């Protein structure tokens, strides 16, 4: 089965509690289960930390521009999607990603995803944003689909969406 790997990067790492760690693990499990329905495995999940001091205030994301800057400034040099997990993303937006993100993570423009830690919604947000990175646009007419523009949603992926994801350059055979 083809697969994808992700880097979970905690922004303001010392602020993350054991309960937050549990939320992250549950979210990863949700993503693994959701992607498996379209024949994609979640391979390596590597964990990284940016301390509050290193984050330079970007542990609180105030707008989408700041989220972009965060992904510009930090990069893990491997063939996996960088997922920056923040505890606070102000406003109703809970995650941001480029559509069809680059495989050269030093390329100009947003080159990672930002995900807000929001309890039971975190899994949907994570899977949704990684979906964008892998090339999936919003599906506005079907609230049962993972790529519906808001959460909570039904969290489902179609076979066609699975095929789109499989053509992304980060997919491992």
């Amino acid at each position, binding site marked *: 089965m083809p697969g994808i790997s992700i880097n979970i*990067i*905690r922004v*303001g*790492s010392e*602020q993350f509690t054991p309960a937050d760690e549990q939320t992250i693990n549950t979210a990863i499990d949700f993503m693994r289960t959701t992607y498996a329905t379209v024949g994609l495995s979640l391979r390596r999940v*590597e*964990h*990284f*930390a*940016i301390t*509050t*001091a*290193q984050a*330079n*205030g970007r*542990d*609180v994301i*105030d*707008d*989408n*521009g*700041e989220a*972009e*800057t965060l*992904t*510009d*400034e*930090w*990069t*893990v*040099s491997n063939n996996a999607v960088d997922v920056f997990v923040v*505890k*606070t993303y*102000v*406003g*109703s*937006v*809970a*995650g*941001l990603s*480029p*559509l069809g993100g680059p495989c050269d993570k*030093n*390329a*100009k*423009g*947003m080159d990672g995803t930002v995900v*807000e830690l*929001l*309890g039971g*919604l975190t899994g*949907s*947000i994570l899977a*949704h*944003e990684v979906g*964008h990175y892998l090339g999936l646009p919003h599906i506005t007419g079907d609230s049962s689909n993972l790529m519906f*523009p*808001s*959460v*909570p949603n039904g969290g489902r992926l179609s076979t066609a969406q699975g095929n789109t994801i499989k053509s992304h350059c980060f997919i491992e055979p």
Partner: protein
Amino acid sequence: MVRVDIPEEDLQPAVLEQALVGRVAHVPASVALGLVARIDLPSVDRAALFEQTVASAAAEPNVRAAAVRMLMRTAGSAGVASFVRMLDAAEERIAAAAAAALGQVGTPDCLPALKRERQGGPLLQKRMAFARTLLAHRYGLVEEAVSLPAFELQAATRSIGTRGFESGRPGAERRQRALQGIKAEFPAFEPGEQHVFEIQCGPRLLAVAVDRRFTGAYGAEALLDKPALPAIVAYKDLEYDEYHPRLLALSRPHPEHGLEVVLTRLSGDPVYVARGRFEGERGELELASVQAPGVPPVSASLRLSPIEVAISGFSEGKATYTRSPQPM
């Protein structure tokens, strides 16, 4: 991008007030902050609600820090006295957010508070220093010491993957949205006083708002006389027709180059530097990017005339300087 959908019955003051301090499980505090600022809530004093959140020990420190910025957007200069008080907050993130707010909406009267010795880590010290610098440029304070982080420039070379760009004028709607986006963060910003130019560089659309007071012969004289904030650059959102201010053009006379303009992030980190000279009312500046993580090498020329700021150049396709998080 994904949004959190909140049930309609929860969009009421009593629920949102509790949500701000984390007491409503299905309405996250971060979402409540945005809702209080955005939706119609008759009879609610938004500024008071944000101030109450900053002061609340029940709210998460991150939420309290974010509430400072929402207070700045809501109250503008009316919040200055509160921000000065918040500089003494025990939580560094809150004091740092208050310092940043003073830089954006404060007046020179705030400088003594921003100069007072305070306990606090590097984030607070950095935000206070940049707030002083920003005030010096917003108000043209010649006698105020300007302190920006040290930087080195990087040279850009044309090769495969470089992208050319040239500024143009946006349509009326994009112009208005860009100005609105800047006004939201800088309440004293005057949209009617701006020339707006835009630059498409790769996936990014940038709007450059240039203050008319710094164009023409009188403007050139002003730029060569004292520090100024002649332009603010906003980036268009990746997904929506919204703009967020991302770069502040801080100009000052330069003994060697004539004029130096440092474009910084709102956090005060330098990103681009332009240097050059004026002849009468016309100026020519060369711009390069700073060696900073995630900033690709850029080379550009800025030609300033009384009615136009023509910006053209190229950007390399990828950043040379990167920074990696620590493995856990």
